[in-house]
């Protein structure tokens, strides 16, 4: 390669000595012109640089509205000047619209209901609390009806399993799952006062974890609510179990161990028997275990040991997952459950309430998670030997024939059970008391019904008030009028105080109406995917990608030339779109809010505007199809990974797949290197390919397994799979990094004789010093964990924080300053005859040497742009290494090494100057790969929050989130920073004169463009290609998450991956634009300063 001229004897001798005197006069004039031209070129570069940054900003990043979140004011000022205050975001807008429709948010209030405080205190103040003396004995808010309860959950007990089969058509015959668990129906028919059976409708997602939350908190599941609990950690909200616990009840839990994760510490440790719920293939272990421990407890001698038993059977659910409902195994399982319930009835005493319910149903294949009828229609059956249940009308005497009749939402269990057992209704409850449970044996106890309904409604009102205080907004009118009407009826009814009073009855009905209305309002707010909005988001992302493809791969000419035009069209387009949006919504053509519609149309308009600019000159366009093996390989990596995200398996095993792809790339690079003609290229190429592959495999030993990867994965990131601290031997890794990494970087610099100038100080001293402090930091951290040193924890922490801040100061404060002012990594030696010229390192311009026989030797000439720019990567690498755990530091070091190796591969295979997409794409793969190798997974629970406290002792904004981002997305950030290097590494020096000389020599016609802007254009293309990779991944994960929004694994796998993709895209967009492209400015300026333009 041309770039191999590592040591260019550049200056050479002056041309013809006889011309020198003649020229002497013109010399000054010419040099003035030269200088002016250079200044022009420099300014052109600077302007175009701004232009490119503007374009990137538009593609990538926030426009004015959202930019506040991401950027400092300075940056925003700059952008305003660039794009005239009108640029819009494409990615952010797309993600915004999708997220708006997809991520359902609900605030979790941690208010708790308390026994002493009735819900009326806040709302009306009219009623004072009952005397607290006999409260505990008789129940908190209401006279309790039972002391004890046995709550049996038969996982996935669908309603139609429990009622007699009624053919809908003549030909329909009973399935295997029908009529096998008749006990519930029989008891409800035979002794209505003892039992009732109702359809019990679950809220999606119908996964056990979310269902248990609904069944105990009485509130609706939403995404973010689920998102805060990905690890299945404890529920923060007020709930039944916590209330029972604080009422002093002894709780026992048997069966499914999900309960343990949700309610840790609430259950009696001696009697509780959790069982692993993971093994879907095992139908009997859990059920037998529950039986084994449940029935002894029901014996009279053990009665005093417990108050409430939660028994959770999984057999039916597992039979469904394994065989599907229409299978003999399901029939026998249901028969077994029938026997179990009969046995429990037989063992039950009078004071104990028995509840049997399904937490969700199952679809025809026996799976669940979604929102289809079969999945949400579970069954609820309550039984007591005392005979307290009633029906308010004769139509409701029989259990509903199917789940469409008289269904109740599952959250109704919460107030019902609370009031029956005499505990406060959990604060966030939205359910209503179940009529049958409070109507009295004759079904006419309206006073009781009105009382419980009023209590529940008041609690709901209190919750709504608290929610609105935290969220802002107001009660809607209908709820208010319902409430006041109910209160009015209640007051008039309470005067007469007979059970049959119509006023009491209508107050009950109005309270109930109020409850259901509120539930509907909340459901509307929290649980509906807004599919049109999701589609808008996906459309924007898709449009953005189409434009990126065109911009990155489909344009022949200089990208920088388009900037100003592009930006003005984008501005006009988005302005027009925004205006149209506001007009449309003002005149009420759409349902969307003004802002949303304006943003959407602005984004569409800007895309249209830019498309016009890019397509205007068809001559500039090429078909953006890859050519050659590398292009196809790049497309193959991106597309196959994107397609793979449709499968939960490939999402789970993303880390291994990335290794597979990276090794594939390495092998292809080795093959390609074998084909190189020159021996140097061949040997170097093969060497670096082998190195690349081995380094990747080495890094793959650092793993943190996600739950779904078990048992085929062994975590090595921490000391053991159950700890989150490093093993002692791992504390050696930072020292090894400090010792080896600078040496490795140095060897790459020496390869092109670039270990000159600032490089020595930078790499071998500053960088190594920073790394050494980092190692000491982590050694102290280990000492703290292991208590090896006789020093107080506070002292250690202070020292550590100081050390960490010192490293950050070196990396960012000193590093950035030095980066801006540093000279290129070259050493210029001038060998000349004794007579001394005044300006030794004059600009090296052909034919312009002042003195004859002056030889200028420039070391490091072959890789000026690359080595100069790489300083930026080093700065960030230092900061990112500090933020990683020791194992992750090793991984990041390997990443830096692999990046350098990749750059050499690109160079020896002539892929730097041809703008091949493979470099930026492989950097994308590397970034994603090392994300996993630094102890992360695409699950929120793998975020290492504690790393925010490496350089700080308390939470400080904005630093804390920045540090967490540096830890989480460090690998992607580093890879993104290296993107410009794919065109800068060993790029030969190009100044206008040299290019012109080349052009005339090869008589190809003058290349008018400023070579610096050509460089900028190449960088832009590489950056856009890298973005294209991330944007495609983001689009794919977004689309799959939206498409699979009913998938069982949505909240465990697809949503987290979508959020990660969006996060990476947003962050890398900023890094690429601000730091990578911004950094090119300084490195190019510093080269231009010495060699001219």
């Amino acid at each position, binding site marked *: 390669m041309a770039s191999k001229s590592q040591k260019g004897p550049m200056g050479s001798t002056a041309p013809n000595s006889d011309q020198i005197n003649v020229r002497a006069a013109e010399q000054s004039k010419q040099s003035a012109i030269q200088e002016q031209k250079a200044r022009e070129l420099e300014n052109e570069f600077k302007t175009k640089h701004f232009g490119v940054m503007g374009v990137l900003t538009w593609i990538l990043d926030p426009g004015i509205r959202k930019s506040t979140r991401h950027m400092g004011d300075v940056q925003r000022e700059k952008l305003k000047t660039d794009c005239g205050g009108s640029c819009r975001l494409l990615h952010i807008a797309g993600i915004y619209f999708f997220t708006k429709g997809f991520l359902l948010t609900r605030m979790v209030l941690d208010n708790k209901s308390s026994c002493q405080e009735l819900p009326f205190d806040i709302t009306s103040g009219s009623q004072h609390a009952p005397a607290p003396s006999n409260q505990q004995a008789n129940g908190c808010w209401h006279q309790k009806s039972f002391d004890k309860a046995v709550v049996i959950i038969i996982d996935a007990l669908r309603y139609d399993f429990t009622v007699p089969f009624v053919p809908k058509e003549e030909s329909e015959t009973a399935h295997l799952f029908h009529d096998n668990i008749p006990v519930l129906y029989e008891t409800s028919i035979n002794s209505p006062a003892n039992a009732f059976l109702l359809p019990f409708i679950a809220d999606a997602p119908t996964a056990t974890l979310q269902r248990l939350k609904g069944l105990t908190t009485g509130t609706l599941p939403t995404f973010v609510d689920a998102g805060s609990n990905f690890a299945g950690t404890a529920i923060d909200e007020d709930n039944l179990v916590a209330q029972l616990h604080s009422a002093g009840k002894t709780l026992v839990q048997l069966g499914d161990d999900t309960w343990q994760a949700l309610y840790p510490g609430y259950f009696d440790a001696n009697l509780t028997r959790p069982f692993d719920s993971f093994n879907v293939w095992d139908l009997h272990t859990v059920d037998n275990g529950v039986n084994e421990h449940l029935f002894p407890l029901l014996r009279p001698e053990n009665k005093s040991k417990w108050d409430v038993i939660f028994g959770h059977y999984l057999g039916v659910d597992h039979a469904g997952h394994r065989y599907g409902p229409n299978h003999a195994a399901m029939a026998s399982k249901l028969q077994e459950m029938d026997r179990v319930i009969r046995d429990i009835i037989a063992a039950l005493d009078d004071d104990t309430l028995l509840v049997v319910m399904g937490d969700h149903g199952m679809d025809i294949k026996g799976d669940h998670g979604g929102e289809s009828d079969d999945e949400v229609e579970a069954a609820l059956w309550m039984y007591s030997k005392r005979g307290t249940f009633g029906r308010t009308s004769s139509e409701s005497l029989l259990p509903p024939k199917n789940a469409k009749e008289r269904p109740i939402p599952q959250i109704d269990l919460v107030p019902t059970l609370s009031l029956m057992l005499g505990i406060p209704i959990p604060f966030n409850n939205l359910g209503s008391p179940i009529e049958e449970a409070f109507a009295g044996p004759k079904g006419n106890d309206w006073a009781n019904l009105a009382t419980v309904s009023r209590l529940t409604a008041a609690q709901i009102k209190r919750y709504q008030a608290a929610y609105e205080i935290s969220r802002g907004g107001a009660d809607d009118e209908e709820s208010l009028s319902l409430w006041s009407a109910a209160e009015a009826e209640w007051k008039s009814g309470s005067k007469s105080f007979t059970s049959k009073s119509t006023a009491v009855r209508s107050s009950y009905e109005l309270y109930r109406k109020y409850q259901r209305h509120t539930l509907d309002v909340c459901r509307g707010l929290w649980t509906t995917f807004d599919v049109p909005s999701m589609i808008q988001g996906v459309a924007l992302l898709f449009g953005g990608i189409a434009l990126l493809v065109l911009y990155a791969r489909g344009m022949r000419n200089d990208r920088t030339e388009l900037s100003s035009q592009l930006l003005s069209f984008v501005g006009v387009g988005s302005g027009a779109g925004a205006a149209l949006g506001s007009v449309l919504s003002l005149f009420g053509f759409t349902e969307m809010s003004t802002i949303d519609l304006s943003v959407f149309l602005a984004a569409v308009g800007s895309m249209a505007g830019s498309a016009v600019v890019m397509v205007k000159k068809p001559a500039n366009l090429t078909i953006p199809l890859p050519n*050659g093996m590398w292009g196809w390989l790049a497309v193959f990596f991106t597309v196959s990974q994107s397609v793979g995200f449709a499968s939960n398996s490939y999402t789970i095993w993303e880390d291994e797949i990335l290794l597979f792809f990276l090794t594939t790339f390495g092998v292809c690079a080795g*093959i390609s290197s074998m*084909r190189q003609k020159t021996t140097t290229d061949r040997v170097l190429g093969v060497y670096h390919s082998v190195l690349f592959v081995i380094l990747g495999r080495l890094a793959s030993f650092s793993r943190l397994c996600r739950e779904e990867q078990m048992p085929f994965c062994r975590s090595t990131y921490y000391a053991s799979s159950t700890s989150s601290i490093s093993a002692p031997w791992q504390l050696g890794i930072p020292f090894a990094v400090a010792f080896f990494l600078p040496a490795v970087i140095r060897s790459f610099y020496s390869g092109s004789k670039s270990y000159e100038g600032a490089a020595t100080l930078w790499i071998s001293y500053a960088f190594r010093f920073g790394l050494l402090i980092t190692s000491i930091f982590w050694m102290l951290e280990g000492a703290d964990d292991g208590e090896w040193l006789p020093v107080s924890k506070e002292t250690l922490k202070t020292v550590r924080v100081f050390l960490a801040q010192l490293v950050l100061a070196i990396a960012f404060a000193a590093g950035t300053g030095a980066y801006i002012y540093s000279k290129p990594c070259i050493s210029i030696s001038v060998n000349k005859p004794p007579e001394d010229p005044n300006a030794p390192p004059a600009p090296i311009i052909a034919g312009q040497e002042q003195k004859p026989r002056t030889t200028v030797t420039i070391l490091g000439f072959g890789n000026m742009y690359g080595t100069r720019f790489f300083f930026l990567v080093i700065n960030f690498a230092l900061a990112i290494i500090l933020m990683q755990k020791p194992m992750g530091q090793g991984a990041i070091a390997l990443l830096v090494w692999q990046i350098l190796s990749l750059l050499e591969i690109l160079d020896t295979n002539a892929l730097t100057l041809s703008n091949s997409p493979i470099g930026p794409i492989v950097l994308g793969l590397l970034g994603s790969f090392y994300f996993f190798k630094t102890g992360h997974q695409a699950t929120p629970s793998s975020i290492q929050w504690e790393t925010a406290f490496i350089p700080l002792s308390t939470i400080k904004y904005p630093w804390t989130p920045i540090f967490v981002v540096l830890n989480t997305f460090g690998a992607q950030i580093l890879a993104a920073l290296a993107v410009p290097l794919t065109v800068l590494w060993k790029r030969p020096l190009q100044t206008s004169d040299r290019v012109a000389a080349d052009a005339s020599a090869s008589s190809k016609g003058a290349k008018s463009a400023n070579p610096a802007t050509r460089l900028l254009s190449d960088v832009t293309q590489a950056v856009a290609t890298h973005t294209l990779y991330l944007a495609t991944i983001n689009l794919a994960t977004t689309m799959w998450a939206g498409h699979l929004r009913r998938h069982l694994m949505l909240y465990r796998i697809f949503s987290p991956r979508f959020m990660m993709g969006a996060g990476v895209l947003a962050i890398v967009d900023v890094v690429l634009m601000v730091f990578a492209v911004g950094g090119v400015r300084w490195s190019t300026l510093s080269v231009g300063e010495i060699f001219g333009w």
Partner: protein
Amino acid sequence: MSQPPAEKPSAPPVNILPSQLARIYSFVHPALLLALAASRFEAVVTNPVQELLNDLPWLALLQLFYVILCVPPAGSLETTSSGDNEEKKKASPRSPSAPRPGKSGHRRKQASGKNVWAGLWARLMPALLSVTLTTFIATPVLAALLVLFGAPLTTHNAETVLCAAHMAFLSASSLVYAHGTDGLVWKEVWGIARPADAVWGGALGTGLGAWFGAIPIPLDWDRPWQAFPITILAGAYIGYAAGSLISRTPFLYGKRVQFVPEVIEEDDKKTN
């Protein structure tokens, strides 16, 4: 960047020996291997290590039988590979019926009666070399590649080595037999730049097949055959059979995988 590095003369594509038996068996062999592999599939799923170990000698024998019967041994072509390969490449597109000059010379040598022993020797030596190199070089190299592609390093070592050995006998044994230790040829092999023929097609097919064989492993179908070496080997066997047959079609025979100028989608993915 370089085109197919054909600047120096290298060995021409290998032709199947012209005898009737050789030509017939060369078509039977891939199918036979596939059929045998399919018949042992259940056993491999049940006990991969034992079964793969048991099958290995048979695979080696079959491959040796195939190369000795059908493939000209290393050295026999050296006389012809001197200068005229360019022309040969043009001429060769598939005419096994018309014996090619190099081959016929070889046949004559063998047919000349007196040298029966020499002929046998000329085939046994490459065969021995093939077994040795396949066992001691190709197998470790392929095992290392498997590990680099993500095969476990701390466990499943027997599976990895056996998988590599099977792949080696599929791919490398005939390459070594046909080309010996010809540096130029091996340089082309590493550069995936050999002209397509039965031997090279089989080798490349083995690698590609193994690469694609890795795809079903992560899926959560819970099938026993998704265990580590099985799909990869299945892919390798299928790839071998397909590669060694397809590469002999007139459309592909003698062609080389192009890296830069033309688009050949998958052929260049990798070697495993």
